[in-house]
C-alpha cells in the first residue's frame, strides 16, 4: 500500500506523541502528582497509531483502561488529556473521569474504560448505529489479551458477526493480563484463531510494526465499510512498564523485557522513514523536539488549571 508522505509523517508524530506524553506521566506519577491509577502504553505505540491511521474522524473507537495511546492516536487533545489526568476542572471530563475514563465524542472516542471487556458491547452498539443509520462509519474496538477471555468480548464478537456489523476488533496482545501470562489464561497461542468460531477473518500481525498494523486494519476497515462485517486483528506486542505505575512487575523476567525493548517500534519506523527518504534524521529530531514542547505546554496547562469546585459535584448526573 503506497502511503502519502503526509500520512507517514503523521504516524511518526503520533507515535512520538504517545511516547513523550506517557514518559511525562511516568515522571509525574513517580513524583506523586497524579492521583489514582496510571496504566502506561509505552512499547505499544504502533498498535494505536497503525489502527487509528486507518480511520476518519467520523469513525469511532472504544478504548480500554490503557487508553492514552488510543485517545492520542484518534486525535485527542494533549492539554485536555493532561489536565484530566491531573484531576483539573479544565480536563476532558472536568476532572471527574481521570486517566481511565477519558472520552471525546467529537473525535469518535467513546471512552477509555475501567471495566476489562466493557468496550465490546459498546462497540457493537456503536457499529450497529452506523449500520442502522447507513453512515458507512466503522468502529474499532481495542481490547487486551486478558479482555479477550471476558464473556462480553466473546458475546460482542458473536453479535457483530451475526449482524455483519462494521466493526473491527483490534486485539493488543501484550502477553499479560496484569501478572497472568497468556499461557495460563487460554489454550490458544493466537487469539486471532478465535475468529473462526464467529466466521470472520482473523489476522495476526507484528504489533510493533506500525505499517503492518495499518495495513491489516485498513483491509478490515474496507471490508467493514463495504458491509462485509467484522474482523479480528491480533497485534503481538509488549508493555514495557508494569501493569500500572507502581507495579513491581516481579512476574516477568528482564530478558523478556529487554528482548522486546530491542524491538522498539519507534526507532524501527524512524529508520525506515529515513532510509526511504521520507524524512531526514534532522527533520525527525525536530519533530520530536516540537512534540516535547507541546507536551511541556500541556503539563503547564494542567498544573496551572484549577481543581474542580465542590459545587460542581452534582453537575451532569442527569441530562
Amino acid at each position: 500500500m503506497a502511503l502519502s508522505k503526509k500520512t507517514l509523517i503523521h504516524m511518526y508524530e503520533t507515535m512520538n506523541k504517545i511516547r513523550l506524553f506517557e514518559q511525562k506521566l511516568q515522571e509525574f506519577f513517580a513524583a506523586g502528582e497524579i492521583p489514582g491509577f496510571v496504566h502506561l502504553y509505552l512499547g505499544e505505540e504502533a498498535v494505536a497509531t497503525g489502527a487509528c491511521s486507518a480511520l476518519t474522524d467520523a469513525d469511532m473507537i472504544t478504548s480500554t483502561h490503557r487508553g492514552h495511546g488510543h485517545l492520542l492516536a484518534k486525535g485527542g487533545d494533549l492539554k485536555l488529556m493532561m489536565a484530566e489526568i491531573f484531576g483539573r476542572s479544565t480536563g476532558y471530563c472536568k476532572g471527574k473521569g481521570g486517566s481511565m475514563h477519558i472520552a471525546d465524542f467529537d473525535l469518535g472516542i467513546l471512552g477509555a474504560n475501567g471495566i476489562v471487556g466493557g468496550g465490546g458491547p459498546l462497540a457493537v452498539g456503536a457499529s450497529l448505529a452506523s449500520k442502522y443509520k447507513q453512515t458507512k462509519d466503522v468502529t474499532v474496538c481495542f481490547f487486551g489479551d486478558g479482555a479477550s477471555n471476558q464473556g462480553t468480548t466473546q458475546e460482542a464478537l458473536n453479535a457483530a458477526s451475526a449482524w455483519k456489523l462494521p466493526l473491527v476488533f483490534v486485539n493488543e496482545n501484550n502477553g499479560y493480563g496484569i501478572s497472568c501470562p497468556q499461557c495460563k489464561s487460554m489454550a490458544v497461542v493466537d487469539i486471532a484463531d478465535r475468529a473462526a468460531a464467529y466466521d470472520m477473518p482473523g489476522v495476526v500481525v507484528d504489533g510493533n510494526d506500525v505499517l503492518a498494523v495499518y495495513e491489516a486494519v485498513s483491509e478490515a476497515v474496507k471490508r467493514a465499510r463495504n458491509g462485509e462485517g467484522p474482523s479480528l486483528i491480533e497485534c503481538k506486542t509488549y508493555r514495557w512498564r508494569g501493569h500500572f505505575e507502581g507495579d513491581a512487575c516481579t512476574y516477568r523476567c528482564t530478558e523478556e523485557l529487554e528482548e522486546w525493548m530491542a524491538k522498539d517500534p519507534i526507532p524501527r519506523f524512524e529508520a525506515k522513514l529515513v532510509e526511504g527518504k521520507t524524512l531526514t534524521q534532522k527533520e525527525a529530531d525536530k519533530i520530536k523536539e516540537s512534540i516535547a514542547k507541546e507536551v511541556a505546554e500541556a503539563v503547564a496547562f494542567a498544573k496551572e488549571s484549577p481543581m474542580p469546585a465542590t459545587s460542581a459535584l452534582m453537575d451532569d448526573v442527569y441530562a
Partner: protein
Amino acid sequence: MENTMSEKTYLQALNEALKLEMERDENVFILGEDVGQFGGCFGVTQGLFDQFGERRVMDTPITESTIVGAAAGAAAAGLRPVAELMFVDFIGVAMDQLFNQAAKMRFMFGGKTTVPMTLRMPQGAGIGAAAQHSQSLESWFMNIPGLKVVIPSTPYDAKGLLISAIRDDNPVVFLEHKLLYGVSGEVPDESYTIEIGKGEVKREGTDVTIVATSLMVHSALEAAERLKADGIDAEVVDPRCLQPLDKDIILDSVKKTHALVVAHEAVTFAGPGAEIAAMVAEEALDYLDAPVKRVGAPFCPVPFSPPLEQFYIPNADNIVEAVKSLR
C-alpha cells in the same frame, strides 16, 4: 491454649483467616484474578500460593462471571470456595451468576443443595480510582434473598467474620473497604469466629445512636469524640452484617438514646440507611425524640479529582452535623 493477641492490619487479619481455614479444611480454596503469585490486587492473598500451591490458590482468566459461577458450582459440588473480585464494581459483569444462580440454587432446588461460597470484594472511594472502581454497593446485595452480606470495620471483626463466612453454608458477600486494609488493631493469633448477623456496640453512649458500617464506623467514632466536647454522648453501633441485620442491637440502643443517625458510604438514596430507618420507624417510633437522619454519599457517581472525591465521601463532620441537627 491461651489466646495470644498482636497488632495486625485489617489486611493481615484477612490473610490469616484465609490461611487458617485453608489449613483446617482441605475443601477451602481460593480463586480470582491475580490471587496467586501476585498475591491479589490489594495483597490479601499474599503468601498463600507459596504455602498451598496453584491447586488451592487459582489464578483465573479475567472472567468475573466464571469466577462467581465457578465458585457457586464448586460450592454446590462440595467445596468451600473463597472467590475474590478485584473491585466490587466488577460484580456487574457477574451479577447473573450471583443473584440468579448462587443466591437461588438452594431455594429453587427445594433445599437439595447448599452453596457454601464466600465472595470477597473490596469497595469504597478514597484512592482516586474514579467512578468504576470506587463504589459502595452493599444495598444491591442486601436486596437479594439467599445472600448474606458481611461488612467488617476492624481487623478483629474482619478475621472472625471471614472465618465464619467460609464456614457458613450460604453464599456470603464479604465487603472490604480499601481504606481499611492498612488500619491496625489487636487481633488474636488463633482462629475464632464471630456470629454472622451479630452487631457490636463500638462505643457506649446515652444521647444518640449512630449506626455506622465499614469505614464510617471510624468516622462515627471520631464524630463521637468531637460531640463529647459539646456535651453530647453518642453511642456507636456497628451491625457488621447487613443481611441478616442485627435489629435488636439497633432497637435496644435507640430505646436507650431516643435518637438515631445512620452513616454509610453507599449513596443515601435507597442505601442501607433507608432500611434501618424504616425498621426503626416500624418497631420503635415511639422511642424517637427526633426524625432519623441519614449520612451517606450524594446521588452521583464517584468523581475522580481529589477535592471532589473528598467532598463526596461522607466524614465525621457530616456525622457531627447530622447529630446536632437533631437538637
